[in-house]
């Protein structure tokens, strides 16, 4: 049996999915996080259900990537039951989608999520009336706490096994009656639900005379409005503590102070955790490598190959993951609590200066962790031009691996202040590049339109599953390349072919005034950026870089590494998201930017 979850963004659809499917989907409080759909097999009462989480959308009409995806899925696959998740606190928007689903002639169950919040807001929803009017079962749900989930899926099974596409008509009248009598009283479990004594009745449709679905979006909007007026008693929106928070967090002055503080704390925490876990993990892999090498003897091709592979594995586990994991976890937390849209709101005017709008801030923040998820997140932007621009700029953001180079070289030898300066310089370069590119690609976009969801306490399950989902992207997309690159390098070293690569890179290293030996680490940095640091020692024949390089050379080298060619994994994602042409164009652009920036930094260093 195939069951599809569909609903507007932020309705808790993915939360529901995670409740039943476990750590397999990505969810977000940020509108449209799930642009790709996620499938999972779940077992309910002995039956296996193929559950698919469709991207959050207000409509199946074309125009938005999410809506098109969802519509295409519903058309192309054989879906037995559609679970329409709606936010009970905002029923009108959810009902519009329901009205669009009804004419599809598939069994639909309407799940009213966030009933606890609705109760807190003093909303009374006549689920029975709604069910009768729409002719579909309507069930209450608090997905974040797992309430109503079991009942929902039992109902789904019942509807789905009713047979094929038109389950309601297969039931005989006696059955119908029985089901009508089955009043689903929502138990009053705790104070959250205290006001929720709404009798909900699951009901199969009588033959209804009036047309259910409506053809145009305007008509559906009207009809949804009518339904809400009829079945929901809604008080005027009250001033709550959430608005109080926004008075500060979206304040013209304090909002930015808090934003800086939050980001500072965030990065501080990430590097704190990373610094704590990196050395022991490196030591562990040192031991493991020794163990793996012992059977092969020294200096043979095989032992070099094993060494290369082990170094690739170690780099992933010990150098990247210690920073990436806390970063993604923290990001998921900020996202689920509802802070990311607020950042987008605050940064909108600044982002307009580089030709984008507020929503494009997400790829930039993600980029500091890893460019791969950063490029992926450009999907949430509606216009192709915005996606292109945001992806190009996001690849210039120094990821955690490049951070290792900047810290290992500049901060360690020349002081943290200079490293910080380099980061500011990076922001400046991104701003200038954005300016130039947006002039070449004139703004044709309406600009920012974004839902700002209410603050919500994140559930651990959601944050964890989202972090896991993104880590998996790194493990699957980037890590294999790290290992292959590392192994290839080992072979190259063994065969003594490094000079060829140095020769190839010589024009670039010569212009920047770098020794020719820096060619190999720069070329292998394309596989993984931290190789540019790790292999620099190998290439120069010393780990004390200040004996082999001048301060200016170190700065120039670090600057070049900060900008040039995105790593292979990022290029693969660029190709997938934007096409080969765009990937080549962006890659070429980064080389030019890197060269110019390195020369500028070198020139400045000489003057000072």
């Amino acid at each position, binding site marked *: 049996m195939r069951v599809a979850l569909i609903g507007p963004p932020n309705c808790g659809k993915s939360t529901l999915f995670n409740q039943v499917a476990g750590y397999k989907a990505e969810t977000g409080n940020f509108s449209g996080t799930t642009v790709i759909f996620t499938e999972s097999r779940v077992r309910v009462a002995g039956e296996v259900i193929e559950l698919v989480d469709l991207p959050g959308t207000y409509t199946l009409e074309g125009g938005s990537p999410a809506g098109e995806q969802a519509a295409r899925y519903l058309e192309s696959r054989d879906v037995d039951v559609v679970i329409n998740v709606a936010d009970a606190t905002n029923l009108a928007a959810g009902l519009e989608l329901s009205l669009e689903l009804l004419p599809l002639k598939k069994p639909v169950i309407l799940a009213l999520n966030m009933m606890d919040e609705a109760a807190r807001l003093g909303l009374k929803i006549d689920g029975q009336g709604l069910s009768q009017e729409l002719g579909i079962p309507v069930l209450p749900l608090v997905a974040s706490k797992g309430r109503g989930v079991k009942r929902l899926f039992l109902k789904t099974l019942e509807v789905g096994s009713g047979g094929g596409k038109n389950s309601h008509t297969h039931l005989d009248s006696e059955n119908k009656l029985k089901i009508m009598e089955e009043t689903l009283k929502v138990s009053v479990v705790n104070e959250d639900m205290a006001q929720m004594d709404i009798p909900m009745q699951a009901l199969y449709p009588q033959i209804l005379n009036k047309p259910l679905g409506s053809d145009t979006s305007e008509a559906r909007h009207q009809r949804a409005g009518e339904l809400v007026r009829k079945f929901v008693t809604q008080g005027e929106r009250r001033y709550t503590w959430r608005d109080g928070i926004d008075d500060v967090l979206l304040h013209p002055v304090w909002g930015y102070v808090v934003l800086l503080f939050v980001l500072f704390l965030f990065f501080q925490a990430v590097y704190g955790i990373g610094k704590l876990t990196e050395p022991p993990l490196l030591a562990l892999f040192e031991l493991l490598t020794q163990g793996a090498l012992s059977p092969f003897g020294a200096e043979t091709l095989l032992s070099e190959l094993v060494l290369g592979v082990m170094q690739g594995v170690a780099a992933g586990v010990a150098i990247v993951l210690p920073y990436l994991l806390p970063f993604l976890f923290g990001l998921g937390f900020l996202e689920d609590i509802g802070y990311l849209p607020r950042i987008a709101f605050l940064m909108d005017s600044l982002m307009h200066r580089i030709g984008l709008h507020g929503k494009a801030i997400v790829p930039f923040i993600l980029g500091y962790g890893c460019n791969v998820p950063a490029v992926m997140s450009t999907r949430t932007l509606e216009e192709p031009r915005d996606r292109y621009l945001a992806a190009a700029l996001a690849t210039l953001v120094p990821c955690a691996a490049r951070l290792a180079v900047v810290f290992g070289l500049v901060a360690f030898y020349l002081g943290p202040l200079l490293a910080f300066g380099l980061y500011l310089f990076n922001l400046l370069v991104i701003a200038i590049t954005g300016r130039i590119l947006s002039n070449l690609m004139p703004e044709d976009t309406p600009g*920012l*339109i974004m839902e700002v969801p209410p603050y919500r306490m994140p559930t651990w399950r959601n944050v964890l599953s989202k972090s896991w989902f993104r880590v998996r992207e790194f493990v699957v997309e980037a890590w294999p390349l790290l290992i292959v690159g590392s192994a290839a390098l080992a072979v190259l070293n063994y065969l003594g072919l490094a000079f060829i690569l140095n020769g190839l890179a010589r024009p670039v290293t010569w212009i920047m005034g770098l020794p020719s030996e820096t060619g190999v680490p720069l070329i292998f940095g394309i596989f993984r950026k931290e190789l540019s640091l790790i292999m620099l020692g190998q290439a120069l024949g010393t780990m004390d870089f200040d004996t082999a390089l001048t301060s200016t050379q170190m700065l120039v080298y670090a600057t070049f590494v900060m900008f040039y060619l995105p790593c292979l994994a990022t290029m693969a994602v660029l190709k997938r998201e934007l096409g080969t042409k765009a990937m080549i164009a962006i890659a070429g652009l980064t080389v030019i930017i890197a060269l110019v920036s390195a020369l500028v930094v070198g020139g400045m260093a000489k003057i000072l």
Partner: protein
Amino acid sequence: VTNLLNVPIGKWARLASVNARLQTRLRQYGLHLGDRVRVLRSAPLGGPLLLEVNGREIALGRGVAEKIFVEVECESR
């Protein structure tokens, strides 16, 4: 009838007209002609507006708000 930028903070207004392309885009966010909106906040330095629509909050960039024409209601309720 004026554009959304001219609506004072806290006032209610009714969406009157937008161009076809923007209308499609707004629909994806559940915004329709005839909806009552209230301007909740306005970010400084050319930043976006925060609107309340049907109990939800939606941020609109200034470029967008400029193209949305509304009828301001005389009394804020």
